């Protein structure tokens, strides 16, 4: 399950909803801009 702690995202393969990936991708994009 995705848990947005102050510093990381955790995704469980084939368990977490694929929508979590868009949250992770947003976090990476924001972090890298």
């Amino acid at each position, binding site marked *: 399950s995705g848990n947005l702690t102050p510093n990381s995202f955790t*995704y469980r*393969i084939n368990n977490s909803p*694929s929508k979590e*990936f868009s949250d*992770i*991708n947003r976090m*990476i*994009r924001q972090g*890298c801009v």
Partner: protein
Amino acid sequence: AQECQNLEVERQRRLERIKQKQSQLQELILQQIAFKNLVQRNRQAEQQANRPPPPNSIIHLPFIIVNTSKKTVIDCSISNDKFEYLFNFDNMFEIHDDIEVLKRMGMACGLEVGKCSAEDLKVARNLVPKALEPYVIEMAKGPISNVYITGG
């Protein structure tokens, strides 16, 4: 007036839940259409080629994909038993699941963006249970945003 207000709050809450369930149902429908299309495509290709593709040229589902610029330097550490990996990228990356890949390959007939030709719609309708067909017809017109009542 107080009761009206309470019912209005309950109405908003229910609408929100329905929209969420609707998008989950749409995702399930897309997943099913994409998967079935992929299987059909591969089966036809193998029959035409009269042999399966070389094993090292394919990746079986389920998988996830990490994509990054070609310029990115990726540093990778792997445990001996391959149970743990650590990747360091010097540039941003994205992570997608296999269904997203199938959509980008066109396996969902364009339904994910509501751009589906009449021909594709015919194909897509045959890939879902009859009870979900009205949904596919609606999705072909564009993402269903409001509360959609099926004919059933």
